[in-house]
């Protein structure tokens, strides 16, 4: 089709061609249909206006009521905002007063007769190695005297990982697009996805990661297993192992880590470690933390296989911490594992 001027549609020749082709009648039909629709709309608007005219008598009474209601609402909002400030300040002052009043009943700092400086620390220092069997007294406190606290802390990590899963999990539609990471995404998706601009398959990082990841893992396992002999334990060793996993992920991407660490392994490892912790320590929880002598002998302090249940508890806590660290990083970066 050649380009036509705008005036060509109004020319006689164009009208003649349209009449020959029979398109004039269709245009007329369409126009007539449009006219009918417009007539119906006019009728509807006339009916609406007539109904509005009937309602005007009632509206005059309602407007006064509405004005009074608006004034009442404005007054109420002003009163609410003013009282809210006053009440918040009052509540803060009352809480501060109550806390200071309770502080006045506490023993003075450095008081020799208070149990903090007297009984508890002395019991830990003098009888800690005998009762727990751990050379590292801090680990003996954390995993033997106060094992219930550590149980709650590991559950806090697990619950935090579950909440991040709920909030940051991506949609099912984007998962289908991410199955083929080699395929180039569309322009809109790449603009919405900042990870496109990340450097991928960096050769220097890959070569360094092959050298650094195995020593990091071995050092983390060493820290976990020597938790009762030297400074360290489940939390710090698990953090080291999680850092090694994150380095491996940064170097080689999600395809290689998906071979050994997926969502299912995350769930099973965390759940089984928490269940193992609960099963191994529940006897003392249910007896009100009365120290029943455990079936496992304490052994000689200083050996690796000593101090009863502290070594398996360290392993459980370390597994939970490593899984939550890697899971946080993977969820924040990808929205999945």
């Amino acid at each position: 089709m050649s380009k036509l001027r705008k005036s060509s549609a109004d020319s006689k020749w164009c009208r003649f061609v349209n009449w020959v082709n029979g398109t004039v009648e269709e245009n007329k039909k369409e126009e007539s249909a449009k006219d009918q629709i417009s007539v119906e709309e006019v009728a509807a608007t006339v009916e609406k206006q007539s109904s509005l005219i009937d309602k005007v008598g009632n509206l005059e009474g309602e407007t006064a009521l509405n004005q009074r209601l608006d004034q009442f609402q404005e007054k109420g909002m002003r009163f609410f905002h003013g009282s809210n400030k006053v009440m918040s300040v009052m509540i803060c002052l009352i809480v501060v007063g109550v806390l200071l009043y309770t502080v006045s009943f506490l023993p003075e700092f450095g008081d020799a007769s208070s149990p903090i400086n007297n009984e508890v620390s002395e019991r830990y220092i003098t009888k800690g190695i005998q009762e727990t069997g751990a050379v590292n007294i801090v680990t003996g406190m954390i995993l033997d005297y106060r094992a219930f606290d550590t149980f709650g802390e590991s559950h806090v990590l697990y619950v935090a990982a579950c909440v991040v899963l709920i909030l940051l999990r991506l949609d099912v539609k984007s998962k289908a697009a991410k199955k083929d990471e080699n395929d180039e995404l569309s322009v809109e998706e790449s603009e919405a996805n900042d990870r496109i601009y990340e450097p991928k398959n960096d050769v220097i990082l890959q070569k360094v990661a092959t050298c650094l990841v195995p020593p990091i893992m071995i050092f983390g396992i060493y820290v976990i297993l020597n938790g009762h002999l030297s400074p360290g334990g489940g939390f710090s060793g698990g953090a080291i192992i999680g850092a090694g996993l994150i380095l491996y992920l940064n170097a080689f991407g999600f395809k290689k880590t998906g071979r050994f660490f997926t969502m299912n392994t995350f769930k099973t490892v965390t759940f089984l470690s928490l269940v193992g912790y609960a099963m191994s320590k529940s006897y003392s929880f249910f007896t009100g933390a009365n120290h029943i002598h455990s079936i496992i002998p304490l052994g000689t302090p200083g050996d690796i296989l000593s101090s009863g249940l502290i070594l398996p508890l360290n392993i459980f806590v370390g597994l939970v911490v490593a899984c939550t660290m890697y899971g946080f990083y993977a969820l924040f970066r990808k929205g999945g594992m």
Partner: protein
Amino acid sequence: MAEWIRYVVASIFIIGGVSIAGIATFGVFRFKNALNRMHAAAMIDTLAILLALVGLMFLGDVFSTTQETIFFILKLVLVIVFLWFASPVASHLISRLEVTTNENLEEECEVEK
């Protein structure tokens, strides 16, 4: 007399490392562009930490052959090796991100993409 020489050498090393770290922090805040700042910051965890840890080795009695001091020095050598592996790679990744994401890079400094 030998201990005094050890202390003097260790203090020279440690003071040198701390002064280099201070100069690098001045560079981090004084330069304008991200690449120059990153280059100044990468000085700290290579040269400054190397000098400080060598000074700590001298404080830990390098010339004695007891087991504890040998393990102490070996741990410090491992720390140096790990940092010299990790920190240049980290600065390399940061610079690569800067080169790929900065639109006005050719105005700031001439870098061949």
